């Protein structure tokens, strides 16, 4: 092999790997990304049943219903809308009424949100940033929610 051929092989190999990576990223971007919506945004966007997204807001007071087999249902709300969430499993330690929460899953035909994961939180004062932002936008923010993790 001449120098030139060697250099071409190297550039060719690099090009192939870069093209592979780029193709994979573009392909994955179109299929695997989940959006975050507050209940009002989810209603306004008219999210179709079956489309995965993250739903964030406050757990409505008095809305938590527990059934046998670890089935839980509760309402995520913001200033204008509320959406019922069904979930089977163990809730995070800090899941409580009146607290910020993010659920990931999709709407079913009946308009309820089937969640397959409820996001774990690490701090009692932690409000998911997305939830805090959307509450602020709606003028519903109260300082007691406290986004500051240092307290």
């Amino acid at each position, binding site marked *: *092999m001449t*120098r030139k051929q*060697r*250099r071409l*092989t*190297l550039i060719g*190999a*690099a090009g192939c*790997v*870069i093209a*592979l*990576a780029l193709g*994979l*990223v573009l*392909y*994955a*971007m179109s*299929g*695997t*990304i*989940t*959006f*975050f919506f507050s209940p009002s945004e989810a209603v306004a966007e008219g999210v179709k049943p079956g489309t995965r997204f*993250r739903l964030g807001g406050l757990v409505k007071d008095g809305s938590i219903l*527990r059934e*046998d*087999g*670890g089935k839980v249902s509760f309402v995520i709300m913001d200033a204008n809308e509320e959406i019922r969430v069904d979930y*089977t*499993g*163990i*809730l995070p*330690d*800090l899941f409580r009424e009146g607290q910020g929460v993010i659920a*990931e899953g999709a709407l079913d035909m009946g308009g309820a949100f089937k969640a397959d994961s409820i996001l*774990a939180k*690490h*701090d*009692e004062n*932690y409000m*998911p*940033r*997305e939830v805090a*932002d959307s509450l602020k936008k709606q003028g519903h923010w109260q300082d007691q929610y406290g*986004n*500051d*993790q*240092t*307290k």
Partner: protein
Amino acid sequence: MFVEAGHYALALALGVSVIQTIVPIWGTRTSDHDLMAVAVPAAIVTFLCIGFAYLALTYAYVASDFSVLNVIENSHSLKPLVYKMSGVWANHEGSMLLWVLILALFGAMVAVARKSVPERLRANTLAVQGAVTFAFLIFILTVSNPFIRVMPPVAEGQGLNPILQDPGLAIHPPLLYLGYVGFSISFAFAIAALIDGKIDAAWARIVRPWTLSAWIFLTLGIAMGSYWAYYELGWGGWWFWDPVENASLMPWLSGTALIHSTVVMERRDSLKVWTILLAILTFSLSLLGTFIVRSGILTSVHSFAVDPKRGVFILGILILFIGGSLALFAWRAPMLKKGGIFAPISREGGLVINNLFLAAACATVFIGTLYPLALEALTGDKISVGAPFFNMTFLPIIIPLLAFLPMGQTLAWKRGDIAAAAKRLMFVYAIAIVVTVIMLSLTSGGPVMAPIGVGFGLYLVLGSINEIFTRCWKSGQNIKVFFSKALGLPLSTWGTVLAHAGVGLSVMGVAATIWGTETIASVREGEMVNAGPYQAKLERVVPRKGPDYNEMAAIFTIMDGDKVVGTTETMKRIFVSRQSMPTTEAGILTKGLSQIYVSLGELQENGSIGIRVYYKPLVTLIWIGSLIMALGGFFSLADRRYRVGAPKRSRNALEIGATAGAQT
């Protein structure tokens, strides 16, 4: 008083770091030996000052000095001693102090190991290290000061975030930082080479031990963090593709590429410009990781505070160093003497493949981590990029690389022969395929990917070990000769074999998780839940009291049919200082390489409790593999070739360093 002395020492370190940055560079510009020599004592004094400041803060924690704001916010007098000490770095201010302490430590080690580093390179390297230290000291002293007092002092602290009160936390951050920050020294060496416009194989030999030690610590730090998340978060997962995890994975990937490209540079005096670029990128990714984790743009257990000033400040440091070093690279790199281009089918060609794939894998993680942040900043749309994205991008890039790994390791330098290499690996392919087929038939009806993945991991392990056989085994030869030959191999060969076998073991552990089971149930005392081939029986639920918490413990007996295998307990803890934040401690029983994992949920109204029970076959291989990878790194580091430049110098050299420090 001690706290003020610590604060003062930190300010003093800032002053000395200015000297460390300016004087030696001036020395290399004017070829003044005395000015260049200033770098050594300056680096050592900077380290001693920061070390003193760090001790002062630790003292404030241990003595529960509740007149120091940082101690009030993060400590509690009832906290066990070890968590008072680890609490120093379990908050924003303290962890940044640890960051800069390690930065200065690496500088001081280069200063102490000075005989192995040529004069000009040493002066420039320490100057660059001084500049980074200076930037972070300014950051700490202006917007992230751990020594701030409050008047009047308060009676009791607010306690540590309970999930951080754990032995895993005591060691994970220092290990990770030693890795993250350790790459600063490769970066400093690369910038020093660019400043002087001179780079050769000797440079690679000097830098390699430093890069390798950083890589070892980063490997251990990531493995520790992953195991901590596994048992502490109670979700049974060990990797979540969380941005914070990705922030540590990116420098690991490019650092792995870097240790391989330095080998090519050392052996063949080639890939020089690329190696310099990788060294810059690796530390840039470390800085980026620090920004992602510490700036508060993400909310996670790692981002302690959301003071926007801090984020902007770190972003400033990031732009200055990454932008500055890349600009210097663009200007200087064309002037460096290029190495030769080599045959594509050869060991060095294989290492180029390694670098290409690792860089591409690193790029996909980079895009997946930063794209959501960029999109939100630009359009306000909030998206999350999670495991499905990374499984679809990262895995298809990393799997071909792994498949090629044993082949690359078998190819000869300069001119390799694929057919000959394949012939040497014939037994490996045969065994791996046979074992996979056997596993497939034994588990027919089960998931197909698990046996294939485990078989693939086995192929990597055998493929790595194969090198020992091809080098030392001749048919008809006495077994004793084989062993004596194998023991006589260079330690760096053993290092390669171990590190690559470790990768294979981790792959086996990851693939075997597909066989795992998860059961969510609510049970009463005496009831049983299946966990793979085992059963978990809830014996009783008891309230207990710990040093600074109360807990409810559920005690389980793990059964195999009628036989008792062992017991394990899972707890829900409520800490005295943070009543509103309960934590869960998972109960884990290790059986061979597999684990049975029980995690406690809520107490139901009807008296039963919610539990998650997992069976995790071969799961410990994930971390055992990582440990063996790190062990491989240690073997390479101990190789005779690097002994001269190894970071651990003889006592003699330390003394010389110390007296040099005392004389100024």
